[in-house]
């Protein structure tokens, strides 16, 4: 679906997002009136200090959380218009997600982990095998197909997670600190791989990271500070 989105349609259109978290009597405003548009095929990095609301924004954009105010549309569909199986199907076919840390299913092999979205989507066995094999080859792990997650290194696990996120050819991919637990060399390699695959498919990417080296690989970097988007200083050409 990723490449099929018309270029004039925003991959993500978020307007006026606010989110308040409550801990007993205390309230914490995690996001405050954040608006963000991501174009088709655009890679956006969200940066900011710890507790600035990066992950909260990503979860709202990916539809895992509901805003207290504001609205999120993904590929022209508002998350709050979807429920139950329709929501799951839309997410499966439109979005890929790479979570923080260990994000693979423990009892499933690398190949089976990648296969899960296809299996849920009812893709035929032969096509599934083909696409899983291709995905494993793209992330450079063709020999690790039958290994369980705890037989893989951290970098290998993240590559499998990326392959799983992209195997359905989603229009948008969300990644929450995908390199947090990796050493810097592996981190760069993993991000390069992820963005290369996404760009080759014209998939949009929203990437949360605290690593500037990773962020600079994005087409655009947005900074969150205390739940608000920081307006970039005007450049010399007025851009």
């Amino acid at each position: 679906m990723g490449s099929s989105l018309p270029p004039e349609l925003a991959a993500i259109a978020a307007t006026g997002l606010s989110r308040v978290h409550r801990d007993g009597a205390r309230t914490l405003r995690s996001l405050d009136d954040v608006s963000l548009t991501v174009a088709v095929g655009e890679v956006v990095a969200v940066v900011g200090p710890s507790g600035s609301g990066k992950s909260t924004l990503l979860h709202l954009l990916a539809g895992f959380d509901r805003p207290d105010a504001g609205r999120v549309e993904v590929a022209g569909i508002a998350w709050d218009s979807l429920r139950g199986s329709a929501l799951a199907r839309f997410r499966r076919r439109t979005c890929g997600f790479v979570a923080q840390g260990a994000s693979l299913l423990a009892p499933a092999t690398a190949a089976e982990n990648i296969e899960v979205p296809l299996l849920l989507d009812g893709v035929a066995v032969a096509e599934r095998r083909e696409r899983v094999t291709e995905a494993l080859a793209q992330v450079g792990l063709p020999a690790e197909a039958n290994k369980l997650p705890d037989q893989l290194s951290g970098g290998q696990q993240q590559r499998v997670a990326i392959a799983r996120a992209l195997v359905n050819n989603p229009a948008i991919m969300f990644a929450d600190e995908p390199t947090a637990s990796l050493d810097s060399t592996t981190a760069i390699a993993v991000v390069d791989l992820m963005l290369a695959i996404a760009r080759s498919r014209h998939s949009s990417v929203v990437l949360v990271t605290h690593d500037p080296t990773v962020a600079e690989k994005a087409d655009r970097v947005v900074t969150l500070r205390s739940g608000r988007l920081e307006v970039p200083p005007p450049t010399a050409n007025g851009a």
Partner: protein
Amino acid sequence: MWWLVYQVNRRALSRLALASVAVALPVAVLASTLLFVDDNVRVMTSVALQPVQVEMRALATSLQVDMPRVARDLSATPHVQHVDLFGSADVVVGTPGASSGRVSARLYGVPPAYFRHHHWVRSTGDVSRGALLNGAVAASPGLGGASRVTIELRGDVSTRVLTLPVAGRVDARDATTWDAIPAGEVQGDIAVVPRVIVVSYDTFSRHVLPQLLRAYGPATVVTNPGLSELPPASIEAHVAVDHHAYPSDPGQAVTWSAQMRRVLERRAPGDIIVADNTAEPLTEASVDATNAKTLFLLLGIPGALVAGALGLAGAAALAEANRREDALLRLRGATDAQLVRLAVNNGVLAGAVGTVIGLAVAVAGVSAVIGHGVWSALPNGPRIVAIGAAIAAGAIATTARLVPLIRAGRRSSLAVERRALPGEWMPTWRRSRLDVVALVVGLMILAGNLLAGGLKPLPVQGAAVALSFYVLLAPIALWLALALLSVRGLLMLLARQSRPDRSRPLTTWRSAITRWTARRPALPAIALTLGILAVAFGTQVLTFVSTYREAKHADAHAAIAADIRLTPATDPVQPLPDLGPGVVATTPIRFIPARSGSDRKTIMAVDVSSYRTTATMGPQIVRGAGLDALARDPSAMVVSDEIAKDFAISPGDTFPVTIFPDDLDLSQKMNFHVVGVYRSFPPNDPFSEMVMSAAGVPAPVPTPDMWLARVGPGRSVDAVAAALRRGPQSRVVSVSTISDLVRKQQRTLTALNLGGLGRIEAVAGVVIAALGVGVLGAFITLERRREFALLRTVGADTRAVLAGPLLEGALTTGGSLLIGLPLGVFLSILSVRVLGLFFSLPPPVVSVPVVSLIALSVAVVALSAVALGLALRRVSRLDVAPLLRDQ
């Protein structure tokens, strides 16, 4: 510290509740078993005392003893309700002026109040107005219509003692106490006295006793322990003791009764010897009680064990929460020692609460099953034992819980869940090969028992039976072994089928989650183990109870031998009246008193041809011939296997027997040809040690003691019996059926109320199996929340997310039933074989209670579904975002 305990538990009441339930479960199962046993045993004393006619029999050591004074002294003893004077002597009864028509009889002298105090002897006249004759005397030639009778001492016919008017009839057929041969401190054999005449004790002491003194001198033979005949004369005081004074525990009652006997003897030292008629039934009840306790406990202990295991499994869910709390407290400066103390105090609090809850549940459950308040019905002793056992069970469960609680401070016990490599889950029982050890132990017990000649029905009962109960440990060991072995085998199979390096393409989502379940089997394996143990336990108890009930019914059937038993209601015996169209066949049964050497026996005389057409259950001949041989040869006899063993006789031998040994007019020696040996020759109640053909009974053939009747085909036995009870026949015969006998039988182990225990244990089994699945669901919810969130990120809907836990629940429940049901039936077969000793007939191999087991299965499935549903209800409303942050 207790302040901290209070604060911790105040904020986490659900954690305290779960920890308390973990302790309450084994306490409830153990305490309910104990309370049920105690309630059964409590009834045993009163049941044992019910048929006792006279509790204590004070026998005068001399005919010169002033028994009225002794009776007054005995009456003053605490717990004595009343004392009745009693005298007896062998006499000859005739009619005034007639030189012929005199018959020997036993004369009894009792005060008029005796009939009021003892309903087992019935009279139609006032004994203070003259003599009461029994049917046999009244039917004797010359005495039929006599208005006056003469009484002479036997052997001293020239001395007429007295002449009395006939005041009425007496029916003393049930007065076995009158015919008990004095044998010292306990009741002796029962003589069969055919002819009875009763006069008032006042008449006896004024007119008979002086003659007895003249005839026999002051000495009596009442204390001769080897006595095999009734003494020619005796004077006694029959002492009724308040049944409520006996301790409810039969063992204690035996001791109390022995003390009571000595207390009575000390009231008239030297003048009397007191025979304790309750000693034998109470001793038998005491042995029964011991056996019942062992039986109940061995049936109930597996339930307590599996409940304890479930409690521990459930409490392990707290380990993670405790680990986190300990970590927080460490950050705030708590030391390891303080954390251990906190854990111990928490455990003690939960243990105390759990013990109280478990005990309360046990009391409520048992009370509901038995239909009355068990706590108020029990004396203090059993209450203290139940409380002590509950506290002990609670302490053990608490201690066992504390180990993982303390270890939780160092690592999460749930870490096993994260190790998903096949074959890695190695709990203690797998590492220590507990299944194999238990199997070997169980088989060794069975082998030892087989080598010792066990697992075969033996006629010997009593203490020897209790010794065999260790064999019941074999089913417990095998229960554990086979359940664990089946889980081990299943795990090996799953590990082989789900190896990652041999993965085949996934076909469906269900195949995927099945494969993944096989790769991390720890949680379902724990639940499955608990489920198999619980279902097998419940099935074993239900099947055992069903088999027990069927065997009991077969015993009752053998006791009656036909559809209906008709016992003469009047004395003298009337001819059998017309029984109406419902009855198609009848056969008379006679019991012929006999003596072989000094042993008194009873021979059952059957009319072979009518017996064949009437009896609904035939004899079980173990050697030689049966009815055919009896029909061919009037002098033929079949003997019980016990007699064959005791007298070392077998088919082909001649067996000399004196019949009617207590009737000088009829007594004669006969040589019988032993033609067969039987284990059962119905009717077995009363059990006859020998059987002969009625054709071999010398004339005059006595009137039948009972008749057996067969109901016509298609007719209801109960309906025909009810019609007979309503009809005119009821004036002549009393009617009883198999159902009546099943209801009446309360003595011995075969009459234990196992039904209630079966219900309690089956419910426990269902609850444990279902809670096992509930614990599985709770663990899954706790441990796999992040996995569920990850599944959401790849587009799984609620159905797909829940498919895994539901599959695990279904596999656990289905596996528990598939393995537990046959395992339970197999184990009950073993238990029944062991308990074959308690049945007069060999019990059936097994009686599978299909309806009960279906109900058990449905209950397990339904309750498991509810428990799993409750545990998983949060999964469908999972908040994904926080879980994605939580690594």
